[in-house]
């Protein structure tokens, strides 16, 4: 379904430098039993966030009131593993609109783009700068400018450009999704199927 438009996002950020965070950590399989898309945010990072009794684990970043914001800055190879889109639904439902990492798993990145969460790939150096800046001052704001394809650390003005293909960028800035596009070319698809 069509989603929120994404143009410029200015927000504080939550740092999660752990590497190889897989989708089973983002949303464990036992919470995939819903038949609707809403409500997954409560179980985002469930087993890192809560102990077996359901009490918040103090040492996990989402339980640290110091950090908040609409941007999640994550470690290398974020979102590996399962293709469950529920992982992105959980991230979105929790309130994040942008995930920054020096390396994303492929399917996860596609899933983000398909529901309107912007995945921003930065260099390892810039990721480290972001982690350091957020950790030394949690009120540090980051600006993600999709039309200009730039991510900027507002405290120092340091920025980096990021890649996104024009088609997806256009979709995200307008809140269009792929199905709108595909439904509009139904006759071309039919012609293709008939000739193959």
């Amino acid at each position, binding site marked *: 379904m069509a989603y929120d438009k994404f143009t410029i996002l200015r927000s504080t950020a939550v740092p999660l430098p752990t590497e190889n965070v*897989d989708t089973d950590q983002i949303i464990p399989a036992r919470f995939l*039993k819903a038949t609707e*898309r809403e409500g997954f945010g409560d179980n985002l990072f469930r087993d890192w966030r809560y102990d077996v009794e359901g009490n918040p684990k103090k040492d996990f970043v989402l339980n640290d009131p110091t950090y908040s914001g609409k941007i999640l800055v994550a470690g*290398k190879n974020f979102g590996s593993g399962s293709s469950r*889109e529920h992982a992105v639904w959980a991230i979105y439902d929790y309130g994040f609109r942008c995930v920054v990492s020096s390396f994303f798993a*492929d399917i996860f990145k596609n899933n983000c783009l398909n529901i309107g969460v912007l995945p921003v790939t930065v260099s390892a150096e810039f990721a480290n700068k972001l982690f350091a800046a957020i950790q030394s001052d949690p009120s540090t704001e980051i600006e993600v400018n999709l039309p200009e394809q730039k991510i900027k650390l507002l405290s120092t003005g340091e920025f980096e450009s990021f890649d996104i293909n*024009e088609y997806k960028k256009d979709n995200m800035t307008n809140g269009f999704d*792929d199905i709108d596009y*595909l439904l509009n070319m139904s006759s071309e698809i039919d012609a293709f199927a008939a000739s193959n």
Partner: protein
Amino acid sequence: MEKTTLFDKIWDSHVVKSVPAGPDVFFIDKHFIHEVTSPVAFLNLEKRGIGVKNPNRTVATPDHNVPTVDQDQTIKDKLSRMQVERLRENCAKYRIELHDLGSAHHGIVHVIGPELGITQPGMTIVCGDSHTSTHGAFGAIAFGIGTSEVEMVLATQCIMQSKAKKMRISVNGTLGPGVTSKDIILYIISKISAAGATGYFVEYAGSAIQSLSMEARMTICNMSIEMGARGGLIAPDETTFNYLKGKQYAPKGADWDKAVAYWKTLKTDDGAVFDKELVFEASDIEPMITYGTNPGMGIKVTENIPTTEGMEGSNKTSYLKSLEYMGFAPGEPVKGKLVDYVFVGSCTNGRIEDIRSVAQFVKGHQKAANITAWIVPGSREVEKMAHEEGLVKILEEAGFELRQPGCSACLAMNDDKIPSGKYAVSTSNRNFEGRQGPGARTMLASPLTVAAVAITGRITDPREVFQN
């Protein structure tokens, strides 16, 4: 003529249109769906007021959350039951072929597709499950998709995809005794890491790959995603054709001859260029096992867990966090460690050959007292064959518990959970934290290694048990 790869040939022939500075509109021949990643897609179709474009190109089965006991009864877990019922309703409403619980061809979606001959060379196949890469073993382009894409395929039979880069991984030579295709793929992932093939579609080639059975090839392609690859595929050959011949959905008669003639053209041209090429020697591969919390953290069963030498920063922190979860220390051997559970099953190693190899290995032995041993066939067909071939009897006599088909303890969505803190040596595909249950500690290995562990109760080199 331009030299092209197998991947190019199949991909390019399925592009309806290339969007300028964007992805390709990519046509999907076969779409598999299951109960967990499809309900929201159907719900959205309803919200849009549109239907399923080509119901005959989609095949459904409930596998992820289903219980593996009492499948003839109503599912006790309310949420699981609702998902399965929703799948039934959606399949009935849109006239989609459903292999339901209890039916002759129920099973894990990636086991029944090949078994029924639905999976064929040259096809494009998707499913809302990352292990869809399994079907690549037939020389198909097969990969996992998210629920938004499931919706796209249902609505339009297409998805929007950018073409991946191409990698060829060749494994040459002959595998030693006790070394299986699972060891090949765990070895490759351990060499290139859990993210080593991200952005690529992998073609597996070389004499060691060509000598493998279809089932063994499926194990390799299945785990392509565990090194980050979009998918993996193997050129079809006589082994492929022999497997498919006579299968329920395979072409028959003149259609078969025509199909085989086409399938024989599906190979990478000599001189075609890949973005990346890797070559391994089969003789370097030994029985493998994972010691950490991603599939790239694998070693030979005989090796020690790597030390932190050369690691720094978040890399080192993440590594130590992983070992802490597993209860292991850097530098120590894995061999000899006590194990609590073994699990034989999943879309990686839940096919009849896997069960045969475990049964052959444990025949006349008893599982160790400290081991709980679960064996979960990948499908009803596998279960039936295991009974008919007398494998179930052998396994039950050895102390294994046979359960009914499903994904089961691979992802522990149902009750098949490894308890917190316990060690499970598993033939499945992921050793992520909590994958087999909250706090569960998973070590991935081949069916042979799992069989050896079941008998000794400890991490064991299967070649040593062979000698005894």
